[in-house]
């Protein structure tokens, strides 16, 4: 059983920098958890806390049910893949992969056997006699992975291992990593700032910001039901549109009044919000993803809002249209066949059941149940 539990862990550095604030995180056995967030949010520190390279200022860390707060890294039975791979430059690839086994005093014949098997698994068998400086980036990364796998540890820790690869290789390695993890069945904690990686790899994603855990849920839930404005804006490409304004009742309906225009609230959305938005009018953000908007050249209020094309990005598979509505800019996605001109008048429909409302003060998602 190799589950990982961080119980109210806080890490404060010299100079008063609090990297991790009161974090409660549990990773189930064999789960692939991704720590996601912008630079400086505390995800790498969290990883290092699990590894034992840093010790917590407060709180407890458990690996496999055992309290490891005071255990040094070599006693924790975790393996780590570094962003820079950290291969030993003076050793051959074989020795690099064999190093952890040698440190644990495994028999020589067994070492040879295991290294060969792992090298085969990662398709680096021909490279065993070379030195790290003779390998390409992708090959070095696989050696780093091999070195982590060969030990059969309780937990894999990965610190942005794909960030040094070119885009194409990254896509390939993502899938390979996922399949590998499934095959070996080891609990994995993976750190990245790339939300695409997080969405594709994770069983559950833990988004952190400024040392505080924002949301911990499977990728689909994070995407569809972000808990607050930060999560909503961080996940999804192109990012969610946020419109400033006030939530107001309008007869039997509800209206979102922005500067210069108003959005009619979808009834489903209004129902979901009703619980949390007791006091109207309420200062809020209206959040809608570009793929949930609709545009047309001939529209009618109140559902359709008039705007002007500000810019167009032609991606081949889709077009991204930037539309200026009064003082607000909206990003929408259009089919690749429709070509719009700059300054052209367009009608946008922002009313959608998949939109979100965020309280301006607390930044909480008003559509999610109060917790």
């Amino acid at each position, binding site marked *: 059983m190799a589950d990982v539990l961080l119980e109210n862990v806080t890490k404060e550095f010299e100079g008063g920098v609090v990297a991790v604030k009161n974090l409660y995180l549990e990773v189930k056995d064999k789960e692939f958890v991704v720590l996601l967030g912008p630079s400086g949010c505390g995800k790498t520190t969290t990883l290092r806390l699990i590894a034992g390279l840093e010790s917590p200022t407060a709180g407890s860390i458990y690996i496999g049910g055992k309290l490891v707060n005071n255990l040094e890294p070599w006693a924790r039975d975790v393996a780590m893949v570094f962003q820079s791979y950290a291969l030993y430059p*003076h050793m051959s690839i074989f020795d690099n992969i064999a190093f952890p086994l040698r440190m644990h005093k495994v028999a020589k014949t067994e070492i040879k056997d295991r290294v060969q098997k792992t090298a085969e698994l990662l398709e680096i068998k021909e490279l065993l006699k070379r030195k790290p400086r003779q390998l390409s980036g992708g090959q070095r990364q696989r050696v780093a992975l091999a070195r982590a796998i060969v030990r059969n540890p309780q937990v894999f820790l990965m610190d942005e291992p794909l960030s040094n690869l070119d885009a194409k290789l990254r896509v390939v390695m993502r899938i390979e990593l996922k399949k590998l993890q499934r095959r070996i069945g080891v609990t994995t904690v993976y750190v990245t700032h790339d939300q695409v990686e997080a969405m594709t790899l994770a069983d559950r994603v833990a988004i952190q910001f400024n040392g505080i855990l924002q949301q911990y849920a499977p990728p689909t839930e994070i995407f569809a039901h972000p808990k607050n404005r930060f999560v909503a804006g961080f996940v999804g490409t192109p990012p969610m549109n946020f419109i400033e304004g006030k939530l107001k009742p309008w007869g039997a309906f509800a209206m979102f009044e922005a500067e210069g225009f108003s959005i009619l609230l979808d009834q489903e959305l209004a129902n979901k919000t009703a619980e949390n938005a007791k006091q109207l009018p309420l200062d809020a953000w209206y959040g809608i993803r570009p793929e949930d908007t609709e545009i047309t050249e001939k529209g009618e209020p109140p559902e359709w809002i008039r705007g002007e094309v500000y810019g167009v990005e032609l991606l081949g598979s889709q077009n991204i249209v930037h539309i200026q509505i009064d003082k607000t800019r909206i990003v929408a996605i259009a089919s690749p066949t429709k070509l719009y001109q700059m300054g052209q008048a367009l009608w946008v429909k922002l009313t959608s059941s998949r939109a979100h409302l965020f309280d301006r003060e607390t930044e909480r998602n008003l559509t999610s149940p109060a917790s």
Partner: protein
Amino acid sequence: MRSEKKIIQANTLKLRKTVARLSSTIARSLQKIRKRMPLTIVKLHKIGRRRLVLGISQNLIAILIELAIIFPIIWIFSASLRSWGSLQTTTLQIIPPNPTWDAYLQALAPDSRFWTWLRNSLFVCLFTTGFCVAIAVPAAYAMSRFVFLGKKPILYALIFMQFVPGILMFIAFFQLLFFLGLYDNLFGLVLIYTALVLPFNIWNLKAFFDTIPKDIDEAALIDGASYLEAMISVVLPVSAPGIAVTAFFSFLTGWNEYALASIVLLSEENITLPVGMYGLSTVTYRENWPLFSALSILSSIPLVVVFMIIQRYLRAGLAIGAVKG
């Protein structure tokens, strides 16, 4: 005395003239070669002609400079081949008349004191090097990798210690050794040399360790190494150049050190090379310059040997390819 001075002055003048003549001949021949070169180069390969000429003339200038630097050593070597007294001459000859190995035979004779001095110097320097490396490496590693109470004060102290001129400390060293009963003892000298060289070595090595990314240490720790094992298996092999420099510097300092050795060492059997040779030049064989020159050349050989051994490690392994890029 005055005649000696005049002879030396005359010789210096002649030296200058010779060097001037030499360089002008070389310059002239260079010009001739340059003029002839385009034809030869065109015949060989047209591309890179200018570069080739530039490269060759640069090399020739370098050779000239090297000759100027080596000249004193050449002169000493030639002096060592002379017979006793033959340096008092008015002519300047690099190859002496009737060159003889007499001086060397005298120096290397089985009963010559050279062997005693050599043995003592080797003892002192090898032990100094051993101690320095044994202490400086863990100290520098700790300074580079760890954060602990008093780290900054210690680092600053190490720098400031180097500002104090060595001579000022001699009285203290002398008293210390006397108190410890290590006066006139080679081992006492070892201790003091180690103390003198350690601050620089630790600082230097720490700076070197700083250039080695900590990722490697951490990877080793996670792979199951203790702090000591991580240092030995991973950081040391990569930092061979830094340690080689430390070792060589420690050896060198001890080998050439005269002042302290002359104070500390007293009895004949404990004298090191520098002290012995100085005594030779002023006390007994006052005018036996060929012997002195021979001894100089001989005492530089161990240094060259040590350097050749260490040079291998200077080139072996720099931390390329361990981390990205």
